[in-house]
């Protein structure tokens, strides 16, 4: 075997990568806030009135992130969440989804008929700009 396609199916792939993207976005936002000297992890926990270990486990992926905890974390970091669902854009020349599993141990199976059935999700955590600051920047 010269090449192995790690293919877990489009549904699982979509779920795993979405969860990973949310975590990465939170970690990126927290790192930026730390660099700015605006928020430490300890302060984040204090603001949310939870133990620091819970924040650690949520950010490391060891504990579940509910929509509420995601919203709370964004609030505590002074960030806002933008969320949208959109149909994937298909362009000529782009990668095509895998249609078969090449796992040597199991039955070869069609994953989703070669078509992307899932919707494309995007989640971004961005700093909240107050009305006052926005007005100031326009002056």
């Amino acid at each position, binding site marked *: *075997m*010269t*090449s*192995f*396609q*790690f*293919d*877990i199916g489009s549904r*699982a*792939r979509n*779920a*795993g*990568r979405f*969860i*990973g993207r949310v975590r*990465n976005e939170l*970690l*990126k936002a*927290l*790192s930026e806030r*730390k660099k700015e000297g605006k928020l430490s*992890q300890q302060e984040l926990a204090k603001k949310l009135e939870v133990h620091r270990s819970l924040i*650690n*486990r949520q*950010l*490391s*992926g*060891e*504990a*579940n*992130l509910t929509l509420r905890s995601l919203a709370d974390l964004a609030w505590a970091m002074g960030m806002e969440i933008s969320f949208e669902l959109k149909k*994937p*854009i*298909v*362009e000529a020349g*782009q*990668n095509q*989804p*895998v249609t078969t*599993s090449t*796992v*040597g*141990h*199991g039955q070869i199976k069609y994953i989703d008929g070669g078509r992307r059935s899932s919707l494309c999700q995007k989640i971004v955590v961005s700093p909240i700009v107050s009305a006052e600051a926005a007005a100031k920047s326009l002056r």
Partner: protein
Amino acid sequence: MPTIEDLVATGAISRIEVELDGREQAQRLLYGTPNFIEWLGKLINGEESEGHLGQATAVEQIDQLFHSYLSGAPLIHNRQFRYIRAEENAVWELKTPDIRIFGWFMKRDCFVCVFGDWADKVKDHDLYRGYRIAIRRLRRELGVDNTLCVQGVDPGDVLSV
């Protein structure tokens, strides 16, 4: 001295790929030994127990890790939250919440997965040393310990992006 192509041709390692998104291209290379690929296959087929800590299953975590690695995404957010860690003897550990993958970098951005295991098992049984020794032995047996092995311990030594 064998080249990467020689190692692939003899079946010592195989290229590992995951589906990339429509507009992504692989920025790094990933290989696995036959034993590692067999372990991955068992995991996909559900022959390993499926307990997991967070919301993603073990195979979803691995897919996300491989996708991040191959697409060139950052693997280190800060000292505390990182997907990659240097061990002794030019061995590197790739991490997900539930899984640990041990291997070495043949060149910058070119990682070989040798062992995959559950994080709890690795920690509870302190398997780090054993995996390090086994990986070094494998490199010697393949004749690549001095040629296809990045020695640095700084992430910048093994990842260019």
